[in-house]
């Protein structure tokens, strides 16, 4: 198989093959993952994770299917899982598209490097397109390699074991391919249209926000949209808006249409998939052609220097000079660096998803403090602060760090205090304000005020916990290749906190009933905060601010002595 692929690849033009390989390396911004990451290893790991997820889905589908005995329940289960898998595939494809946001259109570097070479725009376009679609195809295939087959088997079993499978499998494959193409094409169309309508310097700024918006939209829709696969729910008038505006339901209907199981009254939903697919493909093709025919030439003529916004340059002080410098630097790095923005957006999307789902459920019931409300608001603070702390570990420009080292004029505790200020200003305070706004309708007000006080203390405790051992300026430290255990530690820490949150939330609800318990809880939290603060200040005294992680010293015995 490998030889066959090699032989086929050898028939392609050499310039295409070289460009394709180069572009493939750049589809995913490897620096987001590790400074010295290896693309082949990364793609292998990426596919491995998705295949594992696919196996879990397949097992769950099979077990779930066998649990039900009657045909109607099995059918309902299969329908629910089919929509879930289509939505999950669309989410994964959407996230990959967002991460590889700028990879399909040629940037200034491509134009400057490739234009003097004897290459046609068509070759560059095809190589770029193939590189992007290869990664997307890998993601879609890996995620459905086991679960897709299982889904086709189970759906096909409704119509008869053999014929049903033969009918379901192509329908399933086509649906997922169409959904992936729709998402990819939609993103390209939006980028292309924005590039066409706006001057390039404004487009570059808008593109960053569009990327964030797309990220939030994909995650938000996935987590917030309800399950409407039951025919009664699909027919309900109040659900027509969701069905008509959610692409995952369009493609779910398309699958049923191709499979032959879609009732006639829902055909309009499948039609939206066809229309969406046509518009996305046409829009993407138009955008790409326009870009390669027109924009590539224009890019060379653009001035190197993009003028900055001439308007407001308000940068308020948020503490002493060092704290202000570190906070402003962190905020600017976060908003201007694509990889940091995307990484932080992941956590923000979770926060936003939690807030939206909370808002939805809170509006539907009595305005009393509930366990779900307490837990969700804790999680909002936790993900915002811990997420930012994790993103702080990704360096932005190691070569420029010399300036921080030559201007290191204060002791280490001052730098820890500056990082603390940045965490509080950028994550803890906005997350607390979000929680406070969600608490506005909680009655009695005394309970809401008490919860917000607890939440403020909890936010400070999470901030202090994140500072333990963090003796570096945000975005400035290189980490050693293969330090995946940082991520493992981080997620382990987060899971422990998540486990702790439930008993803590239950305790808080009990404390609300008694002023004594309330005072005790506040005092306990304040004492914890004070202890953590003192510990961080004490341990920072002897610590040096570091800009690169050094490998642990290992003494190896050579065993030469007798």
């Amino acid at each position, binding site marked *: 198989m490998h030889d066959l692929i090699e032989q086929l690849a050898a028939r392609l033009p050499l310039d295409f093959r070289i460009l394709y390989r180069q572009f493939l390396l750049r589809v995913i911004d490897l620096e987001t993952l590790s400074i010295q990451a290896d693309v082949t290893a990364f793609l292998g790991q990426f596919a491995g994770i998705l295949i594992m997820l696919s196996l879990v889905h397949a097992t769950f589908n099979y077990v779930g299917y066998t649990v039900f005995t009657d045909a109607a329940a099995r059918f309902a289960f299969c329908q629910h899982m089919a929509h879930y898998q289509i939505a999950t595939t669309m989410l994964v494809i959407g996230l990959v598209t967002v991460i590889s946001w700028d990879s399909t259109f040629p940037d200034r570097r491509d134009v400057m490097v490739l234009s003097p070479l004897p290459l046609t725009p068509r070759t560059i376009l095809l190589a770029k397109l193939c590189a992007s679609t290869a990664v997307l195809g890998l993601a879609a295939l890996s995620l459905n390699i086991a679960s897709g087959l299982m889904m086709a088997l189970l759906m096909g079993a409704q119509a008869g074991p053999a014929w049903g499978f033969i009918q379901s499998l192509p329908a399933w494959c086509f649906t997922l391919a169409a959904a992936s193409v729709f998402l990819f094409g939609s993103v390209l169309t939006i980028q292309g249209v924005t590039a066409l309508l706006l001057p390039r310097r404004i487009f570059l700024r808008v593109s960053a926000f569009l990327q964030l918006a797309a990220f939030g939209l994909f995650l938000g829709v996935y987590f917030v949209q309800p399950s409407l696969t039951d025919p009664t729910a699909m027919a309900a008038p109040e659900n027509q808006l969701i069905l008509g505006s959610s692409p995952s339901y369009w493609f779910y209907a398309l699958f049923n249409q191709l499979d032959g199981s879609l009732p006639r009254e829902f055909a309009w939903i499948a039609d939206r998939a066809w229309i969406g697919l046509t518009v996305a493909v046409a829009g993407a093709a138009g955008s790409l052609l326009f870009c390669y025919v027109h924009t590539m030439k224009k890019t060379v003529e653009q001035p190197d220097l*993009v003028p900055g916004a001439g308007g407001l340059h308000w940068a308020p002080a948020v503490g002493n000079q060092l704290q202000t410098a570190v906070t402003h630097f962190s905020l600017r790095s976060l908003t201007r660096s694509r990889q940091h923005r995307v990484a932080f957006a992941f956590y923000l999307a979770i926060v936003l998803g939690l807030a939206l789902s909370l808002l939805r459920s809170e509006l539907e019931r009595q305005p009393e403090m509930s366990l779900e409300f307490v837990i969700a608001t804790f999680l909002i603070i936790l993900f915002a602060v811990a997420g930012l702390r994790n993103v702080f570990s990704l360096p932005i420009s190691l070569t420029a760090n010399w*300036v921080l080292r*030559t201007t290191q004029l204060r002791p280490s505790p001052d730098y820890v205090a500056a990082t603390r200020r940045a965490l509080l200003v950028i994550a803890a305070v906005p997350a607390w304000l979000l929680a406070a706004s969600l608490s506005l309708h909680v009655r009695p007000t005394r309970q809401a005020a008490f919860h917000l006080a607890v939440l403020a203390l909890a936010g400070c405790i999470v901030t202090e916990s994140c500072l333990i051992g963090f003796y570096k300026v945000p975005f400035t430290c290189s980490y050693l290749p293969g330090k995946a255990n940082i991520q493992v530690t981080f997620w382990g820490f987060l899971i422990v906190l998540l486990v702790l949150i439930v008993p803590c939330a239950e305790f808080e609800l009990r404390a609300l009933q008694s002023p004594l318990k309330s005072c005790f809880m506040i005092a306990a939290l304040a004492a914890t905060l004070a202890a953590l603060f003192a510990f961080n200040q004490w341990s920072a005294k002897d610590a040096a601010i570091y800009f690169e992680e050094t490998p642990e010293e290992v003494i190896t015995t050579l065993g030469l002595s007798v």
Partner: protein
Amino acid sequence: MLELRNVCKRYSGIPAVEDVSFSAQAGEVTGYLGPNGSGKSTTMKMITGLIEMSAGHIYFEGKPVHDDLIAYKRRMGYVPEEPYLYTHLSATEYLTMVAQLRDLPAKQASERIDAMLRIFGLHGDRHASISGYSKGMRQKVLLIAALMHNPQLILLDEPFSGLDVASSLVLRSLIQELAARGKVVLFSSHELDTVERISSRVVILHRGRLVADDSIENLRTLMKLPTLEQIFSQLAVEQDTDAMARQIADLIDA
């Protein structure tokens, strides 16, 4: 006075700088010369405290700099060899950050930054991202960052790199002016003509070792050579440059 005594730097046992000793006086411009890979930038980085010495001592105004590195850094301004900056910031943002890190009063910093950006011709582009700046513009930002806190010790590693003629002339005069005001100025450059014009003395490094440390006048007399370029060629250039050029041209023609 800046003084280096027997300074060494080894990477995994391989010497980059070996037993280098020299001094740079206040009120003088000391030129620091050497071919690529001779250890100039490594020495500069050791003087700034960016890398640690393997052996030796560095003194500033008679005190070992490592005894109170913070006080030493307060009085030092440094322009590195490569214009590495946080390119996602604008010039104003970058310089304001450096001023804050240096604890300069906000009003004073703002006024100085604004005035220096005007003098260096960057005021119109002060809000543009540094990523779009040319090499010369970045070099100017580095110079402002190095000088705005009025340092006593000024370390300039290839400060003329990327500058246009007018800016180079301004910088040349500025270096002399700063020295005349009692600053210690140590600068390395490959532009021998410039070094010859503005330096009171030169230190020449070759393969990590010191091969000359004297005033240009004394070197001319001692070596009986009329120009610094010829002195440098004799002390630190091993190849026959004309033969190399011919070899390259032959290779292209072949």
